[in-house]
């Protein structure tokens, strides 16, 4: 074959492929438009049926006969969506309705599906059914190769209050190094005080840094003051992220027992830690922090100076007095930030 013929055939092949692809795209779009239209209409019908059934459970047999095989997919999508948005009595009614329609079994089968999206959706819906077989299946889903499915299974277990082992959950959801995703952090925060013992044990153990970060963050959000003493071991951890997260958590807990550690953290070599320590001092609102916060007004980092000035303002009258005093001090950086913050807060003398 000579070059001209090769070029010619390549052109024809590309034209044919483009034409074929375009035809396929147009057919696909026509099909998709029609499917979207039909699905939207049917969803409305099913939604109406579901609401009716909640008010008139006696119509179950009649309505069940109206459900087509393809409706199960739509029902699952509908319930998965609604369960995230409704609470209380309506949510309970929805759950019992799903049981009556046999959707629990459908979801349990969905966990074995080849498509990860179906498996993840099944986990989401199963999070509404506190049955032994569902909990076991969700535990099994924690071994799924796809992270998104594992996260959904873990969220479902947290929602059900059925987490047996925090360590196992951490093992399946966190990286071996680096900071875990905020989606995973949120999941563990939602465990609340029920996991207190696990978190405290984890802080005492030699678990890797990401696991400790999760524990420190969750303890801060638990609002339980039992967390303060173990957290105090971490304000001077070698990892900067751990130190910052610890100070954030101590700030959230607002316990004066944390003050000595916070004051020490204000002298940290890392400006982000110093800034976070200043914020924590403002959260705790202790007057004892004023002298060190005043010193931080002269820090090299603008953010440390700003956070210190803000903390002084939040401490109240003695802090504002210190700010006014700093505004006329000979140190230009301290005077500038004190003056700026006082003006911003409308508290300039």
């Amino acid at each position, binding site marked *: 074959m000579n*070059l*001209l013929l090769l*070029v*010619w055939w*390549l*052109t024809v092949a*590309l*034209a044919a*492929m*483009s034409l074929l*692809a*375009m035809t396929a*795209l*147009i057919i*696909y*779009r*026509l099909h*998709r*438009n029609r499917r*979207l*239209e039909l699905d939207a209409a049917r969803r409305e019908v099913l939604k109406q049926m579901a609401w009716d059934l909640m008010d008139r459970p006696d119509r179950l047999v009649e309505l069940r006969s109206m459900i087509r095989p393809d409706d199960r997919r739509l029902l699952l999508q509908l319930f998965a969506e609604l369960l*995230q*948005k409704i609470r209380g009595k309506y949510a309970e009614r929805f759950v019992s309705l799903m049981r009556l329609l046999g959707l629990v079994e459908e979801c349990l089968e969905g966990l074995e599906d080849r498509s*990860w*999206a179906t498996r*993840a959706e099944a986990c989401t819906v199963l999070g509404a059914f506190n049955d032994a077989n569902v909990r076991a299946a969700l535990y099994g889903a924690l071994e799924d190769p*796809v*992270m*998104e499915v594992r*996260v*959904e299974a873990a969220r479902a277990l947290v929602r059900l209050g059925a987490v047996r082992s925090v360590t196992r959950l951490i093992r399946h959801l966190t990286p071996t190094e*680096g*900071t875990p*995703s*905020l*989606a995973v*952090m*949120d999941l563990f*925060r939602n465990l609340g005080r029920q996991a207190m013992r696990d978190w405290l044990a984890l802080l005492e153990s030699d678990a890797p840094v990401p696991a400790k970060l999760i524990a420190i963050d969750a303890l801060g959000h638990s609002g339980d003051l039992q967390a303060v003493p173990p957290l105090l071991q971490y304000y001077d951890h070698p990892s900067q*992220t751990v130190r910052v997260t610890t100070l954030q958590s101590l700030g959230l807990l607002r316990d004066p027992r944390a003050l000595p550690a916070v004051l020490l953290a204000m002298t940290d070599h890392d400006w982000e830690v110093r800034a976070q320590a200043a914020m924590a001092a403002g959260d705790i609102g202790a007057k004892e922090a004023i002298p060190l916060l005043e010193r931080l007004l002269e820090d090299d980092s*603008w*953010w440390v100076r*700003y956070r210190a*000035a803000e903390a002084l303002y939040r401490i109240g009258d003695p802090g504002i007095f210190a700010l006014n005093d700093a505004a006329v001090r000979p140190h230009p950086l301290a005077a500038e*930030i004190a003056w*700026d*913050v006082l*003006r*911003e807060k409308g508290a300039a003398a």
Partner: protein
Amino acid sequence: MMLAVTTFRDVFLPLVYYLDSWVLTMLGIYASCFLFQIGAAFFELRRSQREGKSVTPWWLLTSKVTIPISILVPAHNEEKTIVENVRSLLSLHYPDFEVLVVNDGSKDNTLAVLRAAFDLKAVSRAYPHSLPCKPIRGIYHSGRYPKLAVVDKLNGGKSDAFNAGLNLSRNPLVCMVDADSMLESDSLLRLVRPFILEPDEMVAVGGRIRVVNGCEVRSGRLVRVDLPREFLPLVQTVEYIRSFQIARLSWSRMQSVTIISGAFGLFKRAALMKVGGYAHDTVGEDMEVTVKLHRYYLENRIPYKVSYLADPVCWTEVPATLKILCNQRTRWARGMLEVLFRHRAMILSPRYGMPGMFGLGYFFLFDAIGPIIELLGYIIIPTCWLAGILNLPFFLSYLGLLFMFGVFVSVGSLFLEELTTSEPSPPHDLLILTLCAFAENFGYRQLNSWWRIKATYQFLRKKRGWGAMTRAGFTQKPAQKAA
């Protein structure tokens, strides 16, 4: 005469064959790159769709993990559209954000219309002077809209406005938005996803830009998506689809996104501060800052990621006249050349990994060198024809192959577009876009190359400045259409 022609052939023919082999090699690389990009873009799209399943906008809206965002909007002479656009930004769905409009020394009534519309009052705000920018004349807050702040400063250009905004913003993430762009209501919730999933490593994420010409917009909200009616915006629609659905998705897959559009990008504020913010001396400030981020993190061996997502959408008006389009394209090309020149050490250098080899390498080979080769073709081919050494059937087949390849790539981008669309849309739009992809080969493509050559000339002459961009404003479109 015969002797002259023979001598010409003796000298010219080997040169033509030499150049021809170069052009063929370049085209071979170009075609392979595009085919590879289509595949990479497909896998990247699937990956990001998978992540989007577990971190949905609804989940983000109701969880407490969203990261506060400052939306920075530089505005220069935008009195016609600014109020509507700010209203649109204020109505975005996101738990914690502020809109920081930077009035960059407008000569019109931009500040006055903002003050009147949002009941702005002068306030004091503490801020660091970390990044260089022109003096700030005043800071205003709205009593009725607590999420809005307006900064009035002396004119210093877009980069200067961004730097002023960066100095004033206090949130960990900053979203750069053009004053004439319109974000979809859940676009911030979608754009923040990579920062939620990889809070430490992610430093910048770009979103998708779509063409608003032809769509119906009411009160800063898009109510109906449609294709533009005029040829120029239509052909730009094809270009935007190709650029965002193929090029950027594939770069994202290869960890080599070297440009995050100034019209819509989300950055870690601390990362921008580390690299010194936006450069004042280039018109390609959005590309420059992205490349600078890569350079900083690679040189300091800090793990990082720069990504692109196809589902957060920002709508923008594209030029409808050749004059404005020419200004825009020459400015873009000049900006790209300025960035390539400034960061020339990174181009095709293994030290700079994928961003240097693949990201900047691509720009260098196809956007900087490509138009020059194309120009050479326009000189050589007629010369060959005049000299009687052009094999016309071969030339025409070759041209046909190039055109068909362009159409094939465009169809590939439409395929990827289809994967991201969840709303019903008319099938004939696909036909119109494919026809456009074919028609762009006759004139538009050559014009584009010419503008790039012009930009190269301007770059060599060290030309500065932006040129004019006249905006019609979003709300005028339905009325225009009705007329």
